């Protein structure tokens, strides 16, 4: 554009055209900016700025009373991070969250895959009904779910213990005992979340070519062998997606303990997100911000690891 220095008075087609394209381009640029600016502004104000500010906050001693003057606080470096990592409640929460993810994610994936396979191959009658049934917990409000699960897990009259009692097994006080409260919440979370994975696995299963299956069947492979040799490897991308989303969700688990146990008994079900929430509630915004970024870092690392382990080779 700047290179076209017009000299002389000769009017040629080339010279007449040049400025016009330049104008056109400028108009296009302007139109593009006009179209892009609303998004850019919204992104800057409502996405980038809060992220930057919360990160800044995590390095300061911001408390609730500083909200009016967010910059007149002291920068204290990594002190909040050090404080979070030496807080026994936060460490307990980290251990609980790790246990929740380690047991919850494989169980959820297994339940989702098993139910998807069953719906794909095994269950032919009332398939729609089962699909709806398995998915219903996902779309049901956690508050309603919590009420029902509290009834189920009641020590004296709950359905779970009635069944256990009938077959002569011990009847624990599920939510009242520090050793059984977290397993009870894992079971509830698996029940509540496997529907999402199931739907995605079902879509993945239906994209496995039938020709491959038939060829393997003709070669004499049984159903079990066909599943592990053909279906499962082809499901790898689906598995990766479900594993990553489920793990991210479970690393942030909050609702289950919040509505069922309030983190108790004896902090046996408090999660990292809940510990963070408590600190926000106390007005310790700096510390809570640091805790949030610690979760973020862990999620990033775990997700990267999963991509490395499960991705297609």
């Amino acid at each position, binding site marked *: 554009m700047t290179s076209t220095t017009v000299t002389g008075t000769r009017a040629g087609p080339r010279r007449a055209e040049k400025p016009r394209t330049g104008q056109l381009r400028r108009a296009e640029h302007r139109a593009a900016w006009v179209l892009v600016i609303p998004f850019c502004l919204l992104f800057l104000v409502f996405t980038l700025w809060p992220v930057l500010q919360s990160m800044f906050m995590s390095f300061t001693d911001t408390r609730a009373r500083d909200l009016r003057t967010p910059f007149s606080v002291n920068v204290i470096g990594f002190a909040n991070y050090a404080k979070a990592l030496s807080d026994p409640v936060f460490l307990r929460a980290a251990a609980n969250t790790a246990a929740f993810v380690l047991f919850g994610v494989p169980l959820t994936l297994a339940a989702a895959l098993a139910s998807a396979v069953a719906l794909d191959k095994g269950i032919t009658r009332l398939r729609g009904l089962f699909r709806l049934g398995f998915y219903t917990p996902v779309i049901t409000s956690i508050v309603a779910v919590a009420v029902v699960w509290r009834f189920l897990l009641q020590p004296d009259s709950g359905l779970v213990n009635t069944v256990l009692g009938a077959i002569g097994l011990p009847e624990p006080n599920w939510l*009242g005992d520090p050793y059984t409260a977290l397993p009870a919440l894992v079971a509830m979370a698996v029940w509540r979340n496997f529907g999402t994975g199931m739907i995605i696995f079902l879509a993945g299963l239906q994209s496995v070519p039938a020709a491959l299956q038939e060829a393997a069947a003709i070669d004499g492979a049984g159903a079990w062998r066909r599943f592990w040799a053909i279906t499962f490897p082809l499901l790898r991308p689906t598995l990766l997606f479900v594993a990553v989303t489920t793990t991210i969700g479970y690393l942030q688990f909050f609702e289950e303990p919040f509505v069922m146990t309030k983190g108790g008994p*004896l902090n046996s079900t408090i999660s990292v997100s809940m510990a963070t929430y408590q600190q926000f509630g106390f007005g310790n915004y700096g510390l809570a911000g640091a805790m949030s970024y610690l979760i973020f870092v862990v999620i990033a690392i775990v997700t990267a690891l999963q991509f490395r382990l499960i991705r297609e080779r």
Partner: protein
Amino acid sequence: MTMISRRSALLGAAGLATLGLSACGRGNDTGSQPTGPGSAVSEGKATGEVTVWAMGAEGEKLGDLVEKFTAANPEVKVTVTAVPWDAAHDKFTSAIAAGTTPDAAMVGTTWMGEFVDLDALDPTPADLIDKTVFFPGAWQTTEVKGTSYAVPWYVETRLLFVRTDLASKAGFTEAKDWDQLSALAKAMQQKAGAKWGISLQPGQEGSWQQVMPFAWSNGATITDEAVTAFTFDSPEMSEAWAYYQSFFTDGVADKAPAVQSTADADFANGSVPMFFSGPWMMSAVEKVGGSGFADKYDVWPMPTRKTATSFVGGSNFGVFKAAKNRDAAWKLVQFLVDPATQVEWYGMSSDLPAVTASWQDPKLTADKRVAAFGQQLEAALAPPAISTWDQVSAKFDSLVEKVCKSGLAPAEAVKTLQQEATSIGMGQ
């Protein structure tokens, strides 16, 4: 193009960083200087517009009460906004941060320290409000560092709910002191067929409200007189915790009750015939118990140790510093704590009056159970208004849980609490 955008992005980031850094650092502390009572309020009737927020059931009924005020002050317009309890704290703190508070509002007693810390509340004008007309424990909840920032609006306190029919089966007609309460709880289990002798909260949110009355009755305190240091680590506190723990170690109280309290149903069917709670539980147990149940129970005062002190809760009413119509707002507050208004409000909401004179009214003396709450209010305390109380009380609750459920030694628990509370501090 990429070069330029990257450079400008870097410049922008650097600019942001310097902006952030150069503006950092706290200014002079303004909140720590002592504040006297609020300045005088103008004479005459209230005029102009007053905006008011109130929570829960109070928020829904306050509008009707205020009609009396507007009838007496025809030139004033009061707008009451009902705020749901669970959203209230966030709504207040963000309104304070944004400077969009109402003129006056109902303020939870445990929020006082925090709101004053945020420099949000107007000190109570001494010419308008006489502190001696209120229950002393209730007035104490309005004071932060010796200055009052609100008035007690309504109060509640905790008494011992007892199934008197079962108690007489167990051979008791009263629980005068700690030994009698323990003996009664055991006898309830052994002679009156109760599953648990008494319901006490083994930790979890709010358990401090059940433990502190025992501690106060034993002469323990939360802070020193001047509210400068915590005093959890005392023999009196430790002894009270040990007494509380004994109910669990003796198997008299349930270590792992349901998360959602079933106290009213358990009380009605006799499986847990005693618990400590406030006046709202009277209608709850009578509803569950059905007709005739009102004769089977009573509310008894706190058992005596050195004193018989209970917990006082309720809500205050305050005026915000950012109020656009301060004088009219304080006049509304003055109207709300008028003894006659307090009695009328009791009739509308069943909220107990914070003004002692209102308790002479036949409406409150007629029911002897309600009157018992009035008597207990004379000896009822609240924790001092410090902005970090939520955080300190959460530590309190989690240590109570360890004492009740996993047998942590009370002396060690109060020592830990003292350390943790001190490291949290009192804000500011």
